[in-house]
């Protein structure tokens, strides 16, 4: 992947974009500071013709430190193995919108979210109303600002909105996955002509909660609860971001153990997704059989960590489990065998012609759209985009492991289904390598000092795609800013493109084919104030 010498091309790229004030930090993240106008121009140039693309943007309130808000545009440059962050200090509470220039979904959403939560205006931004907050939320209350009142505002009862035209409601509770999301489909006969999405019903400010009430070493346990399926990805990515921020070396064995749990998690997540796709296509025999095999994977996770899903195994500096070699070998063997069995089953279900026709040629996402709008993970790879954080920006033990990154070109539901099955087999092979080559030694390094106001950014390949955590350390062991960007955040808006032109009855199948995780996207967590 990295044939041109990275140093040279990186320098050339930064020159081309007009970025002067840049420094590279651990993990291959290049932080650049830029003024508002210059930053947006650089961002537009990077996204258009450089092999890089915008993956997300975020903001933080630094008024107490340097007097301004900051907006950060994060670019993934897979061929250079770098992330480029363009950090723009916003002094007069509004800047030009990058989304207005790029006209892409991921940019529209992340700027929109910043406008809701920080009250930073983006001139020319296409979004109307609210994205994250309820429609009746008061205009002048920006919950993620450091001086936001600690009590939530009293909300007016939302005004009844008249549907714009003949909309067919899908949701808010049950399309494909039983989570709160709402699609309004504009239909002509049985065909979907347009889609409006409303989500974030369960946004509870988990990032704010962490900043206010948790110490940095407690946050992994909160992060793990962002997602009910791939929680370990979140705790790992958070830990890596924090480790980079304060400079903690993680022991080799811990890296392998992290990779092992991450792959186990990918296998059970992909099996769940394929099962749910079959369920959405009306084939519950397939669903049941796959879920039965998946159960074996869950039991192994439980034996390794003490829980089927919430492993609680991460801590800054390493992991909290240290299974002996025979347990690792046995676990890996059981998971790999279950994975192979499940893949065989899942492939055989495609011989049922009703299932096959429900998936084939349905919900096509074109290659160009997938790249520009920031599609991630299996959704991108099934549309011919060859990206995988494990290979492009190696973390945990992936730098020392060999694996293929399956890519398909068709871009339909069938491609996404088959691609995940290929990935399950790759994960099984990664697990076997880990069992063979896991080094001995300590599993955690607690010998570090907390450092204040340091930035760390980490990315990982979650089952659904690239997951990004951005951390700024604060004072007295807390965090100044913690930003979580889950992969479904980029993939969900693309449903608009995927649903258009297909039958209403295909909608649940298409929605489940991107394996959307609404709780990750909304960053749900249930909390109550402690006395």
């Amino acid at each position, binding site marked *: 992947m990295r044939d041109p010498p990275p140093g040279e091309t990186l320098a050339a790229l930064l020159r081309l974009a007009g970025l002067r004030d840049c420094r590279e930090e651990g993990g291959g993240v290049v932080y650049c500071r830029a003024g508002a106008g210059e930053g947006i121009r650089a961002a537009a140039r990077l996204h258009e013709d450089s092999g890089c693309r915008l993956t997300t943007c975020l903001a933080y309130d630094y008024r107490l430190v340097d007097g301004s808000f900051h907006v950060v545009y994060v670019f993934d440059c897979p061929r250079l193995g770098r992330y480029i962050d363009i950090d723009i200090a916003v002094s007069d509470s509004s800047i030009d919108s990058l989304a207005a220039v790029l006209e892409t979904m991921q940019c529209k959403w992340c700027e929109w979210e910043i406008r809701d939560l920080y009250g930073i205006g983006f001139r020319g931004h296409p979004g109307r109303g609210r994205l994250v907050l309820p429609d009746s939320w008061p205009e002048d209350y920006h919950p993620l600002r450091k001086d936001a009142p600690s009590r939530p505002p009293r909300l007016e009862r939302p005004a009844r909105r008249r549907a714009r035209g003949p909309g067919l409601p899908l949701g808010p509770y049950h399309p494909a996955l039983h989570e709160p999301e709402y699609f309004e489909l504009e239909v002509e006969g049985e065909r979907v002509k347009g889609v409006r999405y409303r989500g974030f019903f369960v946004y509870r400010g988990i990032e704010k909660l962490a900043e206010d009430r*948790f110490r940095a070493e*407690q946050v992994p*346990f*909160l992060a793990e*609860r962002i997602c009910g399926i791939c929680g370990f990805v979140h705790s790992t990515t958070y830990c890596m971001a924090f480790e980079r921020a304060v400079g903690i070396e993680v022991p080799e064995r811990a890296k392998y153990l992290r990779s092992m749990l991450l792959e186990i998690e990918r296998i059970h997540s992909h099996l769940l997704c394929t099962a749910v796709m079959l369920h959405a296509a009306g084939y519950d*025999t*397939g669903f*049941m*059989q796959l879920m*039965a095999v998946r*159960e074996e994977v869950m*039991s192994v996770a*439980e*034996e*390794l*960590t*003490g*829980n089927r899903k*919430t492993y*609680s195994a991460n801590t800054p500096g390493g992991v*909290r489990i240290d299974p002996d070699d025979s347990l690792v070998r046995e676990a890996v063997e059981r998971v790999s065998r279950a994975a192979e069995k499940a893949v065989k*089953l899942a492939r*055989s*279900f*495609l*011989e*049922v*012609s009703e*299932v096959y026709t429900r998936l084939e040629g349905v919900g096509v996402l074109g290659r160009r759209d997938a790249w520009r709008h920031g599609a991630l993970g299996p959704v991108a790879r099934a549309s011919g985009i060859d990206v995988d954080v494990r290979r492009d920006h190696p973390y945990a033990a992936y730098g020392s492991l060999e694996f293929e990154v399956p890519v398909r070109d068709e871009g339909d539901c069938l491609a996404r289904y088959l691609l995940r099955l290929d990935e399950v087999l790759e994960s099984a092979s990664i697990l076997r390598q880990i069992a063979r080559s896991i080094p001995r030694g300590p599993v955690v390094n607690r010998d570090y000092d907390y450092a204040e106001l340091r930035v760390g950014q980490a990315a990982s390949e979650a089952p659904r795609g690239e997951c990004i955590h951005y951390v700024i350390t604060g004072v007295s062991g807390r965090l100044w800013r913690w930003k979580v960007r889950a992969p479904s955040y980029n993939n969900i808006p693309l449903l608009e493109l995927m649903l258009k032109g297909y039958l209403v009855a295909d909608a649940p199948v298409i929605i489940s084919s991107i394996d959307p995780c609404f709780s990750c996207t909304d960053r749900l967590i249930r909390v109550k104030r*402690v006395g």
Partner: protein
Amino acid sequence: MVGRLTALLAALRTGRLTLPYPYQPAPAPRSYRGPPVFLDDCIGCGACTYACPAGALSLRYLAGDDVVVLEHSVARCIFCMLCADVCPMEAVRRTSVYELATDNPAELVQRLEHRPAHCADCGAAYSTLRAVSEAAGRVGGIQRYMLRCPGCRAVEVASVIASSRRGGGLA
């Protein structure tokens, strides 16, 4: 047709997986991380309450400072076992129970009572007798600072500095 046969065969081979639970018990595997129980070895040092990410533990001074209570609430607990990691007395034991539903909320709370240590200067309760004697045991004898509450210790430090100051300033 072939496809349907494959599925049928798979279903037959899998057989029936549903367990007769709850008519027969289905114990969790030994490795399962259930709620912690707090043993009598606890000295009431409070380390676990500081570590707990879920706010499931508290150390409170009750009855006019006559008793110190360590309280654990299963309802809040996320079974992470950080409390066990930090406990200096190995007084936290992991269990593997999972049938925690109850119609009596009191069953979700575990309490350990301790006798408080009172400050030698101001008399306020600031720790437990067992924590102080454990600390003394570990460093080979009672130290002056162990008998004073954090507030009085701070005052003492300040007055040492003030009394050794030469000239200048107020008082």
